[in-house]
């Protein structure tokens, strides 16, 4: 029963991934991406990583893809948004490389998965948000702080990047919106 769910959601994730690439319209690509996100989130839930699943939705679906959509619409690309796919050669090379890569990775995964035993016993503790927080803020406190600095840097970087000289942000951007 559970394995069926794994298969279904895995399949949905892959279909979403394929659609991201196949769709010519970036808006559809973004929506396909959301589909994948949901499917992956479902896989997290199946593996009892509830908190990660929720955060996955909040961050990826709720923020990141919305940002994508926001930019797509802000640029208002019109026909330009529907760029034709790359040339035949590039498609071929890309596909070839991808298939080779997938083959190798698949072989590795298969080898590993077939030798791996059943899931470890401590799984009961995995779903607990508190234990997650404890590990995060004790064992990984320094990386956590570093990540916060990275985010700050990104914030400053974005401001520096989109600054237009001589024009305030409020007037120009706000008017467009």
């Amino acid at each position, binding site marked *: *029963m559970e394995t069926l769910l794994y298969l279904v959601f895995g399949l949905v994730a892959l279909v979403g991934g394929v659609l991201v690439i196949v769709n010519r319209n970036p*808006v559809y690509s973004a*929506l396909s991406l*959301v589909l994948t996100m949901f499917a992956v989130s479902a896989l997290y839930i199946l593996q009892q990583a*509830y*908190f990660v*699943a*929720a*955060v996955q*939705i*909040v961050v990826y*679906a*709720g*923020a990141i893809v*919305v*940002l994508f*959509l*926001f930019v797509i*619409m*802000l640029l*208002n690309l019109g026909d330009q948004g529907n760029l034709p796919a790359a040339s035949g050669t590039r498609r071929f090379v890309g596909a070839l490389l991808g298939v080779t890569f997938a083959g190798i990775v698949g072989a590795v995964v298969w080898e590993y998965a077939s030798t791996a035993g059943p899931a470890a016993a401590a799984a009961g503790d995995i*779903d*607990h*948000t508190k234990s997650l927080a404890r590990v995060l803020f004790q064992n990984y406190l320094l990386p956590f702080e570093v990540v916060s600095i990275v985010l700050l840097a990104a914030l400053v970087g974005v401001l520096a990047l989109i600054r237009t000289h001589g024009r305030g942000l*409020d007037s120009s951007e*706000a008017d467009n*919106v």
Partner: protein
Amino acid sequence: MSTLLIQIVVALAKALFIILLVLTAVPILVWAERRVSAWMQDRHGPNRVGPAGLLQPIADGIKFLTKEVLIPAHVDRKLYLAAPVILLVPSLMTGAIIPWSKPIPADSALGGLLSAVNWAPDGIPFQVAQINVGVLYFFAMASLAVYGIILAGWASNNKYTLLGGLRASAQVISYELSLGLAILSVLLIVGTLQLNTIVEWQAGGMWMVFAQPVTWVIFTIAALAETNRAPFDLAECEQELVGGYHTEYSGMTFATFFLAEYANMTMSAALNVCLFWGGYTFFGLEQILPWWITFGIFLAKVAAFLFLFLLIRWTFPRFRYDQLMRLGWKMLLPLALGNVVLTALGLAAHEMWGVPLWPALIVGQVALIGGVALVSVMRTKAESAGSAESQARA
């Protein structure tokens, strides 16, 4: 296997009940809105169809249903039709984690029926899903609501709708932060993400709002903005954008947007009640009252909140876009951050030095209010000094 199937059936039944509940609430809300607005503006409002116009929403609904769904040319058909549904579904899904009443005791008729398939000593929770990341789930679903708006705006292939969609997405992303931070301080105090536990924590009249008034204010404002209700309804402001993101919609598709907006309001109010106003509890009375009366208490509280939303809508003028952004980023966000810090400090004082919890939290809130007052006074002074200076220079 069969147990699982029955569990699924029960869950589906609960879900269906809640959806129906919300969908029933919407016509009443529509009617209430029109009557309240009329009352506030000193006019009659709808009063022809049925007693006091009570049947007016039904007449409207029939009209929407029978009207042709007009699909303009040059729209993206699929997304155009999907957008209202995408908007409605997450708001209905939100209802899954709301504890609508106290657990249904096993010795009651309904409880007996349910416990036959799903035995629980403490009774059957009147809650579709007791997810252990409950509040986060609500948060996730709320953040999805923006897709409906943004897709509607884009799919309509109309500059007004597009602008409406953009505004909505920016607004929702901005206020999500304050909303999350406001919820965070509640979570810090209770120490769990499960909504029923949060409600039980407040049993006996120790409602969160008494300990966290500032948090409640932040939450309410952010939630209003999240639901695109006035005074934050810039995505659909008639004066600038005709009808905003739903300009191109008509008939049942338009009705779905309507439905979604009121469903959103209801869920937002329900969460507000759960987090801050004790949910189904009422000063300990819920211990002795039967579960369906606590359900009634909960509904009454939600209704009161909805009434508050209506009052706000018809009282406050709409924000300008830059004012909206300033409020979100420059006032609410710092305030929410400070709130979290002070709450955490209060909790730390409680846990480490044994300071009683409530005074510790209240002191934090008072300090926050004092800080806000100080900053605003200083800013006013600086502004007046600045203007005096500029006048002198002029």
